[in-house]
């Protein structure tokens, strides 16, 4: 890390922290149904939606109704996306006449976008029409993010209400989140990006004659990129317009677009900490969560950068002037902005990449895996990161309660066996599926035939794929041939289960919490925002993630690291 790198990182986090309070406050007002400055523009649209859809915006929902509405809305969304992919060839706005997508890949892609994962087993510029990118991908980038926000808000209402049977109205949360939060932010970012050179058009692919070889005709891809990239980053979706995602110069042409997109990755997940504090009327809790997330993220980010900036031992004997590992990285980002981006994108469940992770150092791959193995709680996806870390809080106060022999409480509500069971279910689903599928893929040719790199790195490719899909992240060690029926179907199912099966216990806890009344504070009440408790939560997260995954990390990146440096004795 050079001084410039530290300065950039510092500058980045300062901007994020300065934006946390105003945006968090704004999001709070949106979900509390208060006026938020955009009512003149979007108010009529909102009311129109309610009228056409027959939504009674005053009516609260029980947790089961909320869950039911969320599930059918998402199921319809997935069916629509699947349909668009399957009949793409017959739809308009397809200047390159791309054929329709085969069933297994369509299933995987639909599951991927509806669950906010955005794992991409296809290559954007060679397989998707403009209509599919807009009406399919961009739509789910909005709706999956808005769903995540709704689930978070519903859970929070469970804590802030007492003796109540309802968690708010799913339709209202979806509509308001999309209209007032995601759309305006996406518009601003999309315009800023297109000013910098991110393309935004509906032209057919552009022919050109290159400078050195003006005889042969070549082709530049085109498309409505800026509008999709904006929401891709803001909604922690991460599904790129092009095959190489944010490494593509048309998607991320300058260091400035890179900074804007990196800010967008962390913006909403960070602001939600403050929103949480406001919703439960205890802002210290919100700041504490933000602090915990930063503690989990920053050291790993620094480790990734340092690991990538080191000389590559296999290159020592060659006639190369080494300035860090530049294989699979773009020059305009350099090692620092590539490695830093990778940490941000794996810490949030964003998953867009601006460099090729398959060519990272073993420790770089380790860090990316580690951040996902924490369960996407160090910021995590929009909404999903917050409800993920609240599950960890519930488990942590339970453990702390056991130590001091008191009934555990969180935010003034008693944590009882039902909540504990649900929190455990929510936490354990991800490691279960990730490890199970990794194991199956590692010992069958179905899984191993897709591997492209030899040795322990090949195992890392499989582990990474199922970790990424199991955490709704979407980044990949993309040498892995992921477009096979096995990876498409197993991965599709994994993405669906790890998104929706977690939503059930989360809403169940919300429903049961809302019914409870507040316990008056006493001398024995465990305060959950003190430095001691922050340290405790960080430890619990690391222990859960570490114990679940350390053996598999040992077989992949750790072995690779040892052999990587083994011959060179440093």
């Amino acid at each position, binding site marked *: 890390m050079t001084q410039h790198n530290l300065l950039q990182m510092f500058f980045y986090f300062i901007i994020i922290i300065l934006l946390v309070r105003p945006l968090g406050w704004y999001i709070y007002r949106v979900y509390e149904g208060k006026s938020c400055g955009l009512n003149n523009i979007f108010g009529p*649209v909102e009311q129109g939606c309610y009228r056409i859809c027959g939504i009674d915006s005053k009516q609260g929902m029980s947790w089961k109704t909320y869950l039911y509405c969320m599930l059918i809305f998402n199921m319809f969304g997935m069916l*629509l996306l699947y349909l668009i992919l399957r009949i793409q060839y017959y739809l308009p706005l397809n200047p390159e006449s791309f054929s329709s997508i085969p069933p297994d890949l369509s299933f995987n892609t639909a599951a991927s976008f509806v669950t906010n994962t955005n794992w991409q087993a296809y290559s954007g510029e060679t397989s998707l029409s403009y209509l599919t990118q807009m009406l399919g991908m961009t739509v789910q980038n909005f709706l999956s993010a808005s769903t995540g926000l709704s689930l978070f808000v519903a859970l929070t209402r469970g804590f802030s209400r007492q003796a109540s049977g309802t968690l708010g109205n799913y339709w209202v949360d979806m509509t308001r989140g999309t209209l007032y939060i995601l759309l305006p932010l996406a518009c601003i970012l999309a315009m800023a990006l*297109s000013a910098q*050179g991110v393309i935004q058009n509906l032209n057919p692919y552009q022919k050109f004659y*290159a400078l050195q070889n003006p005889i042969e005709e070549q082709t*530049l891809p085109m498309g409505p990129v800026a509008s999709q990239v904006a929401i891709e980053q803001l909604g922690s979706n991460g599904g790129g317009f092009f095959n190489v995602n944010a*490494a593509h110069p*048309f998607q991320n042409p300058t260091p400035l677009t890179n900074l804007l997109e990196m800010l967008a990755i962390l913006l909403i997940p960070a602001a939600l900490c403050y929103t949480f504090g406001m919703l439960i009327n205890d802002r210290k809790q919100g700041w504490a969560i933000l602090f915990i997330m930063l503690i989990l993220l920053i050291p790993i980010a620094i480790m990734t950068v340092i690991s990538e900036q080191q000389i590559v031992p296999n290159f020592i004997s060659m006639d190369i002037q080494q300035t860090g590992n530049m294989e699979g990285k773009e020059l305009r980002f350099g090692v620092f902005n590539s490695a830093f981006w990778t940490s941000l994108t794996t810490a949030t469940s964003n998953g867009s990449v601006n460099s090729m992770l398959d060519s990272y150092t073993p420790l770089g791959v380790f860090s990316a895996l580690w951040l996902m193995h924490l369960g996407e709680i160090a910021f995590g996806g929009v909404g999903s990161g917050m409800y993920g870390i609240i599950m960890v809080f519930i488990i942590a106060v339970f453990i702390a309660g056991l130590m001091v022999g008191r009934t555990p409480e969180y935010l003034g509500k008693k944590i009882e066996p039902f909540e504990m069971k649900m929190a455990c279910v929510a936490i354990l689903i991800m490691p279960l599926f990730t490890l199970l599928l990794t194991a199956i893929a590692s010992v069958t040719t179905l899984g191993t035939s897709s591997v492209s790199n030899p040795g322990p790195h090949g195992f890392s490719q499989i582990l990474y794929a199922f970790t990424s899909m199991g955490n709704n992240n979407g980044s990949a060690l993309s040498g892995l041939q992921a477009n096979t029926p096995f990876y498409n179907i197993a991965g599709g199912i994994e993405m669906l289960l790890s998104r929706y099966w977690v939503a059930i216990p989360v809403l169940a806890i919300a429903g049961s919490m809302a019914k409870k009344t507040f316990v008056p504070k006493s001398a024995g009440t465990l305060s959950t925002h003190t430095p001691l408790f922050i340290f405790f939560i960080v430890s619990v997260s690391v222990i859960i993630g570490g114990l679940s995954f350390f053996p598999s990390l040992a077989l992949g990146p750790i072995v690779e690291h040892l052999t990587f440096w083994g011959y060179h004795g440093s």
Partner: protein
Amino acid sequence: MDMKHIRTASRLLLLLTLLTGLVYPLSITGLAQLFFPWQANGSLLKKDGKIIGSTWIGQSFTSPDFFHGRPSATSPLPYDAKNSSGSNLALTNPMLIHALQTNIHNLHLLDPENHQRIPIDLVTHSASGLDPDISPMAALYQIPRIAKVRGISNDVLTHIVDQYTMRPYAGFMGEPRVNVLALNMALLSHSKAG
């Protein structure tokens, strides 16, 4: 559960799909075309009335009288703009070592008298396969070869490279870099003028 929610779900999905999937991207397209037409259409460059590429998309340069860009792993041909791709080779993969050795060998073949160490970005594949830039060091490394082939002095070439070096924003954001296409166009116009 009743049909009411199903009806609401399908209608709301339809409305929000129209709003975020058509109204939003089409409005952004309209605004971008209005305010930033050149950028929104790919920052295309023209020479003698013909489109010769985009500022942001790197091109294949292999002849000794041009500055070369970074190795590209797109297939079937390098710098195939409609097939962005990295090499996805692990650092521990022998194929990567082999690819690097080939790249080093080729650079040495073009200029056997150049014994400087080769900057790493000139032998490693970029992430997109379309990287438009090289480091200033990588440009300086190639100067002796171009000076010989084109008969332009080292000092003039160094000056051109320096002129086309983009520095980090505010002195610390991003990396110093040189756009290879811009640099080669400058080279051509200098050769013509000289």
